[in-house]
């Protein structure tokens, strides 16, 4: 077997294992041990096995395609042809084929490894975190009508069942070989997200958050369906390989061009539609409102789904569809990413709920990725996707550990926890450093340092290539990076440093069990090293991803129809030592990060400055940020109220007009029916009765013929025969027989 068949096999196994686990838990979950405790082992075993299989597949891949630095040109690596194919054809409608296929390149493999590795950590973490679900749970946040807290049975196995389903869906989304399959699994992860956000569905806020997430995602999916239809209309296929080969044919040197049947604008619509779906899933402006509410779910859910994997799926899809995006679409992506990262960062600064801070941080980081992708930095965006997955899951798990210890989400009630929970404090510090991009410029840093530097460099490269408006993106990213540093350290200081602000909380706090701290440590290591290359062979995430770079995108994009002057510079330009862009970007990023760190230390660490003063000084801004830019209110005003008004109006019309009409027509019908009844009885019935009487009397008369005497019948028979003969001899001739 060559790797072209063995890798799909391994990945398919890794993909289907969680499905098997899901099915088993669905069928036998509650019977697996007391309260289904062994279902956790089953689910974890499945994901760990999937992880092993994924890494095995990666190993096979490396034996064949070991990334070597390209000899010519001195930049980048060779792009490797992906392995694509189909396992099974579901249906064929004319030219449209719906298949279960695969499209495997280095990105797919890396995603598999990342999802399964992070997933494994979080599964293990959940052992400890979800322990209370093993017995009956009293939920004070879900009061009954009589004010008593709800008591319900634990849902331990259900949690892991959803987790398995989610892992299956996410892996399916990654391995999918065509858009239709992507869409199916896209919706499946949406379902899982919905189920897990509403895991505590007795809480009103949780069920509302679930609905909100689902409905907001529908808006994005609507756009995605439009994009799919545009692709299908223009290209007549859903398969990735065919789409890319048609949009960027070899004959054209892999340059973007519009194939026959697909106008340029349709391509724009397709790109925007796909991006619209990604906006919904990745919580970009203006559909970001669901993600912070989604923190109602258990913290491992937030870590796995709403930070590390699912929301990254949107970015992944943008990266996957990168070859078909025209400059206009890329600019839209960059703009949306830019707005998102800035806005979310500002909200994160003022938030006090620890998970909300992290949620807005996630939104902001996703904005970073979108920005990088939009500016042509495919590698930057993807690299940040992976590093972000590592440190954001770490951060969430740490926050989960804290919440588990304190029983509250509010940072103002915490403080001084570092002595009580040293491991959590240290790992979270590493996470903060990583997300803030700590490192020594031009030399080495934590994972976030490298990926963020790529983004900054691309932003700077873009602003260089497009003087004027181009610099907006760079500076927005720069400010965003500074704010990231600020709010992350604010979070750490408020939680772990200083004195305890709430004695009750502090006295109850304790370090989490090993099943929770273990994953924390693993992820902390990952958060540090994720972006590093191995010392000698130069193997790392970056060269690997470089293998998956869509062909033809390394040279940058320029000259859209609408925006002929915009240029998305090639990515390697930013790292050209001669231009010095990378160095500049690194130093500026380092500087703003340091500034943010110093500010945070001044405000919250050393308490030299009072945050309340700052609040008073920037009161309008503070209010704006605190109320999340009034997005929820805006949506309520723009969408929900009108809908309610229209509903009320329709209700009124229904009651006043339609009901009246219905009532009166019913009365009219009743009146007509009475008239009809009268006619019926007088005329029709009598007629029918008369006929029946005639029939009856005729029958009475005729029954006398039926004597029951066989011999009489025989005589009639004979007489009839004679009669027939006579008639025939009189009237019959051969012509009548048709002869």
């Amino acid at each position, binding site marked *: 077997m060559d790797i072209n068949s063995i890798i799909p096999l391994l990945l398919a196994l890794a993909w289907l294992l969680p499905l098997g686990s899901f099915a088993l838990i669905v069928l036998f979950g509650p019977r697996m041990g007391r309260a289904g405790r062994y279902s956790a082992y089953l689910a974890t075993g499945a994901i760990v096995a999937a992880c092993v299989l994924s890494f095995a597949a990666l190993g096979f891949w490396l034996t064949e395609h070991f990334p070597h630095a390209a000899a010519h040109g001195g930049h980048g690596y060779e792009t490797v042809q992906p392995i694509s194919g189909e396992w099974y054809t579901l249906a064929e409608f004319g030219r449209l084929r719906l298949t279960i296929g695969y499209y495997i390149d280095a990105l797919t493999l890396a995603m598999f490894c990342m999802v399964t590795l992070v997933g494994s950590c979080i599964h293990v973490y959940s052992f400890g975190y979800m322990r209370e679900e093993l017995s009956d749970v009293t939920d004070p946040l879900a009061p009954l009508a009589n004010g008593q807290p709800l008591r319900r049975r634990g849902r331990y196995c259900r949690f892991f069942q959803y987790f398995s389903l989610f892992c299956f869906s996410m892996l399916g989304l990654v391995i999918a070989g065509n858009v239709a399959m992507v869409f199916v699994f896209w919706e499946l992860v949406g379902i899982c997200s919905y189920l897990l956000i509403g895991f505590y569905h007795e809480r009103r806020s949780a069920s509302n958050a679930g609905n909100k997430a689902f409905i907001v995602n529908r808006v994005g999916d609507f756009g995605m369906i439009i994009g799919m239809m545009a692709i299908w209309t223009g290209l007549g296929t859903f398969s990735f390989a065919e789409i890319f080969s048609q949009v960027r044919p070899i004959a054209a040197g892999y340059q973007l061009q519009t194939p026959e049947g697909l106008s340029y604008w349709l391509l724009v619509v397709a790109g925007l539609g796909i991006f619209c779906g990604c906006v919904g899933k990745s919580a970009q402006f203006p559909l970001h409102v669901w993600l912070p509410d989604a923190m109602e779910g258990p913290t491992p859910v937030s870590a796995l789904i709403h930070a590390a994997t699912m929301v990254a799926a949107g970015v992944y899809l943008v990266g996957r569809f990168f070859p078909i995006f025209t400059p206009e679409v890329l600019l839209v992506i960059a703009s949306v990413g830019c707005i998102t990262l800035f806005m979310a960062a500002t909200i994160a600064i003022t938030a006090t709920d620890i998970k909300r801070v992290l949620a807005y941080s996630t939104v902001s980081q996703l904005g970073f990725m979108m920005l990088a992708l939009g500016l042509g930095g495919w590698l930057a965006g993807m690299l940040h996707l992976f590093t972000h997955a590592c440190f954001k899951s770490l951060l969430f798990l740490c926050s989960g550990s804290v919440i588990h210890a304190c029983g509250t989400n509010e940072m103002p009630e915490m403080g001084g926890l570092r002595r009580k929970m040293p491991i959590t404090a240290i790992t979270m510090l590493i996470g903060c450093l990583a997300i803030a991009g700590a490192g020594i410029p031009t030399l080495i840093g934590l994972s976030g340092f490298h990926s963020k530097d790529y983004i900054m460099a691309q932003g700077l490269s873009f602003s260089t290539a497009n003087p004027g408006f181009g610099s907006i993106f760079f500076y927005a990213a720069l400010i965003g990076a500074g704010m990231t540093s600020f709010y992350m350290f604010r979070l750490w200081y408020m939680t772990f440093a200083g004195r305890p602000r709430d004695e009750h909380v502090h006295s109850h706090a304790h370090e989490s069990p090993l099943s929770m701290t273990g994953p924390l440590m693993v992820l902390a290591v990952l958060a540090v090293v994720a972006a590093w290359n191995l010392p000698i062979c130069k193997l790392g995430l970056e060269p690997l991803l470089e293998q998956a770079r869509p062909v033809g995108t390394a040279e940058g994009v320029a000259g859209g129809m609408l925006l002929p002057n915009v240029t998305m510079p090639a990515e390697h330009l930013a790292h050209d030592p001669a231009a010095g862009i990378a160095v500049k970007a690194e130093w500026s990023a380092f500087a703003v990060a340091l500034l943010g760190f110093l500010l945070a230390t001044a405000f919250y660490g050393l308490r030299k400055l009072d945050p309340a003063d700052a609040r008073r000084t920037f009161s309008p801004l503070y209010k704006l940020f605190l109320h999340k830019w009034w997005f929820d209110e805006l949506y309520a005003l723009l969408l929900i109220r009108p809908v309610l008004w229209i509903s009320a109006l329709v209700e009124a019309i229904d009651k006043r007009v339609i009901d009246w009409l219905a009532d009166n027509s019913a009365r009219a019908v009743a009146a007509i029916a009475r008239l009809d009844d009268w006619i019926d009885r007088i005329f029709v019935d009598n007629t029918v009765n008369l006929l029946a009487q005639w029939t009856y009397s005729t029958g009475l008369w*005729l*029954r*006398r*013929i*039926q*004597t*029951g*005497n*066989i*011999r009489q019948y*025989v*005589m009639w*028979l*004979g007489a009839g025969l004679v009669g027939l003969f006579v008639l025939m001899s009189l009237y019959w001739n051969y012509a009548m027989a048709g002869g």
Partner: protein
Amino acid sequence: MSIFTEPVGLSHFLVVGAVLFVCGVICMATKRNVLGVLMGIELVLNGANLNFVAFGSSVLRPPGTEGIGMDGQMIALFVIVLAAAEAAVALAIALSYYHAHATVDVDRGDELRG
């Protein structure tokens, strides 16, 4: 020119068939015994059968005319077989009738009269 020297023709057979047929009909019409009626039926069938055979026979036809050929014998054969079947069923019905009425008089079986 007597009948003894003339070859017989089709009509001769047909006349015999007609006699059998009419006898059968009269038998059916005049017998009160179920079995008598049954015998009448047999006679009628035989009369018809004789006609079939006669029409199918090549002996009885003037030269140059083509009759119904083997069809005549074939149909007659079927009639014989079906008549046997009919007789079996009819006898079974007669037995049932006897069990029910303690007689074989068909005039007594007029429960279905109008």
